[in-house]
């Protein structure tokens, strides 16, 4: 290999794509699943981050510019998010603050054209009430501003699939266990282990790119470097999901401690986020705690009290790989990225990508690949901002597709959102095998053909992987209805023993429940207990699948 990329987040898949496009022989290893880390658990905003404007306008400008680029290469994955930022009327100070905010957003307006955003508007209290009746309390008014959202998991999958189609080898569920170096210190090979099959191997390579996000220090140590050589500040952030759209607009508000937070209508759900706390726990098992959930709920309740009556259906959590800087408070840390060339630490050929944001992943990947181009003396230039990602080349019409297939337009709209023009490939499956037109997950909804498609073409290996790619089981039912069926399909498509499908379903249902319980609110305990009883009756949650009905010897 020319380059081995470690990590299947947005940065790793982004580099794998760019490097493959420029003709390098690339292999990517992902320890868990594509988008398993920060990339699949972020707030999903392709924003310039107005919050960086004050102390780090460079971050704002680069992010805005690349937001425009990402819209061009994956138009299907982006959606506009109009935000309202209400300002409570707590005396003359707040009125002055409101004017300052107006000026601030005027400054942000300069960047809006870069990302096809609309300029902000200054709204009176009456206007705010009309737009968003749920916002209570005396308000000076609100600012509106425009952002874009994306499904981070789909973005990673699109990059990985593209890299693969351009010749890269992508292995998921396969962890790198060591980075071998020659006596002179240069990188020589990586050793890996497939975490499902147990298969181990060694792959020689000239360059290794450590794009393992919050894992980066651990990964550096696999190459015999001190972890501090790829230091990041691991900043855990959580989100709470509610079962419906609670507002018309996204609400940006200030938390109890003055941090900025948001409430965001997202497809048929609402997302409440987010927190930022140092995290030194197990990165493979990051979960929200009820303390964190309460902090968010109580914070947003100050402007949106009816949140207390809403039904939380889950949480998700990730750890930001923030650039390390000594001392500063968490909020003020820059999200800018940095490429570390470990030649300066005696390990030529090893690079670490640290920091970064979803919004600027492509730029980050471009800089990294420029460095690779220098090393390999490649003539070509970066084309990732002009070459469509899979599915981003043409628009697809979900309504016409719904008519052709005789399925619900809600289902085809989701399908087109996730796959863009490649939804036609899923449609072809359904036309060839009408049986695949049935709905596997009714909450989202997800059709059987899509489940089979992601197993066959998008490197999914389990029920959980399918969920990450299709949102199956992530809606109101928590996978109770669809996990078992999905497990059967996984087993069938991948040629696994049928019992493995059942075992995966049990694992998925239990894992989903664990993300749900920290957010259990009034009245939800009964639904939870019914889910529990039902999982018990049908699957047997407290037994391991291999034993559940085994006869004594």
């Amino acid at each position, binding site marked *: 290999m020319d380059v081995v990329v470690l990590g299947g987040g947005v940065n790793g898949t982004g580099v794998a794509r760019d490097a493959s496009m420029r003709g390098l022989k690339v292999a990517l290893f992902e320890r868990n699943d594509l988008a398993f880390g920060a990339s699949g658990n972020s707030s999903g905003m392709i924003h310039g981050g107005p919050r960086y404007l004050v102390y780090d306008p460079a971050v704002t400008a680069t992010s805005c510019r690349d937001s425009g680029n990402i819209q061009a290469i994956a138009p299907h994955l982006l959606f506009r998010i109009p935000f309202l930022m209400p300002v409570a009327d707590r005396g003359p100070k707040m009125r002055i603050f409101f004017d300052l905010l107006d000026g601030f957003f005027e400054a942000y307006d300069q960047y809006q054209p870069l990302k096809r955003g609309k300029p902000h508007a200054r709204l009176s209290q009456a206007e705010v009430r009309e737009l968003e009746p749920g916002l209570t309390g005396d308000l000076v008014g609100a600012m509106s501003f425009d952002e874009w959202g994306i499904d981070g998991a789909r973005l990673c999958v699109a990059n990985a699939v593209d890299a693969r189609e351009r010749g890269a080898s992508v292995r998921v569920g396969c962890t790198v266990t060591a980075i071998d170096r020659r006596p002179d210190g240069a990188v020589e090979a990586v050793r890996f282990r497939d975490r499902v099959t147990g298969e181990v191997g060694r792959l020689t390579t000239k360059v290794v790119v450590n794009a393992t996000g919050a894992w980066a220090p651990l990964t550096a140590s696999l190459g015999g470097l001190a972890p501090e050589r790829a230091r990041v500040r691991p900043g855990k952030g959580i989100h709470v999901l509610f079962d419906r759209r609670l507002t018309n607009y996204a609400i940006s508000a200030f938390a109890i401690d003055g941090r900025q937070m948001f409430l965001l209508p997202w497809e048929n759900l609402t997302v409440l986020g987010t927190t930022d706390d140092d995290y030194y726990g197990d990165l493979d098992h990051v979960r929200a705690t009820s303390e964190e959930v309460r902090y968010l709920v109580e914070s947003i309740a100050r402007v949106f009290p009816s949140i207390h009556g809403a039904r939380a259906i889950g949480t998700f959590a990730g750890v930001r790989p923030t650039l390390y800087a000594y001392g500063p408070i968490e909020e003020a840390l820059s999200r800018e990225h940095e490429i570390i060339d470990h030649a300066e630490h005696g390990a030529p050929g090893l690079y670490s990508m640290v920091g970064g944001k979803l919004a600027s992943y492509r730029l980050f990947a471009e800089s990294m690949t420029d460095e690779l181009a220098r090393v390999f003396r490649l003539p070509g230039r970066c084309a990732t901002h002009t070459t469509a990602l899979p599915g981003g080349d043409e628009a697809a019409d979900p309504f016409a597709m719904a008519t052709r297939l005789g399925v619900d337009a809600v289902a085809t709209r989701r399908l087109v959102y996730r796959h863009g023009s490649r939804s036609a490939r899923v449609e072809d499956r359904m036309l060839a095998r009408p049986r695949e037109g049935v709905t596997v997950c009714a909450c989202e909804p997800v059709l059987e053909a899509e489940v089979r498609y992601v197993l066959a073409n998008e490197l999914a290996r389990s029920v959980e992987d399918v969920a990450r790619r299709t949102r199956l089981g992530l809606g109101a039912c928590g996978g109770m209805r669809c996990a078992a069926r999905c497990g059967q399909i996984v087993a*069938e498509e991948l040629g696994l023993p*049928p019992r493995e499908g*059942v075992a995966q379903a049990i694992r998925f249902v239990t894992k989903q429940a664990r993300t749900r319980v920290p957010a259990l609110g*009034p009245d939800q305990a009964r639904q939870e*207990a019914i889910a529990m009883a039902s999982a018990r009756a049908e699957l047997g949650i407290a037994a391991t699948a291999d034993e559940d*009905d*085994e006869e004594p010897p």
Partner: protein
Amino acid sequence: MSRSIVIVGAGLAGLAAAFSARRAGRSVTVVSAGAGATALAPGAVDDVPWERAASAARVARVPLVRRPLAVDVAAFADALGLWSIGDDGADVARIATVAGVIRPARAHDRALLDLSTIRGVVIVPRAPRAAWDADALAATWGASPFARAQGLRFHAAEAALLRHKGERGIGELDLAARHDEGDRLDWLAARLREALVREAPRGVDAAAVLLGPWLGLAAPRAEALSARLGLSVGEALGGVGSAAGLRFEAARDRLLASLGVDVVVGRATRLEVEGARVALTVHGKSDLVVGDACVIACGGVAGGGIVYAGAGAPDRARAAFALSLDAPVDLAIGGVRVDVTSSLNGPDLDETAWPTPGAEGALERVGVRCDGARAAPGICAAGAAVADRPRTALEAVAAGLRAGREA
């Protein structure tokens, strides 16, 4: 005048309490507010949670057999007329679930197919319905250790079970209800017979037919069909709210009527004990329901009886958990009163809410604190409403019978 008993809840526990109180000559009023766990459960009937029974049997290396039923429990089951309970000491029933598992059960709704006595080939008809992929299910069931040990094979077979195209997408209860209509059973029998005839030359000698949970809502449809085809026909166990729940409700209403129990439909909101009398307030009704004693059988957290309240809901913020009716009893988890408020809205559920292979989940354990059936003077409790009792159907029955007697 005979002693009168007021019962809150008409799930299995409330029904059993009514049964024993009437047998003891008491007059009984049942107040109930609609479907609870019993009406949502898919028809397997256990004494202890099946996973626990199975793992105990595994550890002790003994076969899983039906533990003896108490005489009064057997009499109740007989009067309800809904379950196949088998003989004490015989092998436990084995039920196939639509999730692809074959699980043991002490007893079961008579429409479910018991695989424990079947040897050979079980036909699984293909039906173009979501969540019913006969081939995948047959492969999954067939690979289970039970099927392998028993020599059971599952064979997916073509059978035109749906009568109209629209039946592909209708709910399972609706499809089940259609099987109660006029000649539908004849039609179904004819289709299955065709399928069996088609499979026979291929060397498939069917011993049973396993259908989805849509065989009908009226009681022993499966038996009629089995008699007609000369082999066992039954359902697989479905999910929440499958036909078994409606069959329970029909059987319950018949039993309550034959026992001569007064039924008040409504949500109880308040229970007061004054001297030797209890008085129950029912939402929207001006008259109190009064009696000499009360049985709380309003279900567990699942039944809708207990509300998980907390900081977010100021009116209920006093306690982490509250009974849906205001009653002078204590709630407990593990014998300890629940009045802590720590995490989001109540006890720290992050790690404890869901069961693990070693332990039950907290939500399964919270309930009314009882000494035997007694929760407070004049008040008994039974079924899933009680703390730290197994959440099973037969436990609800046994506790209900005891509470009815004690009250």
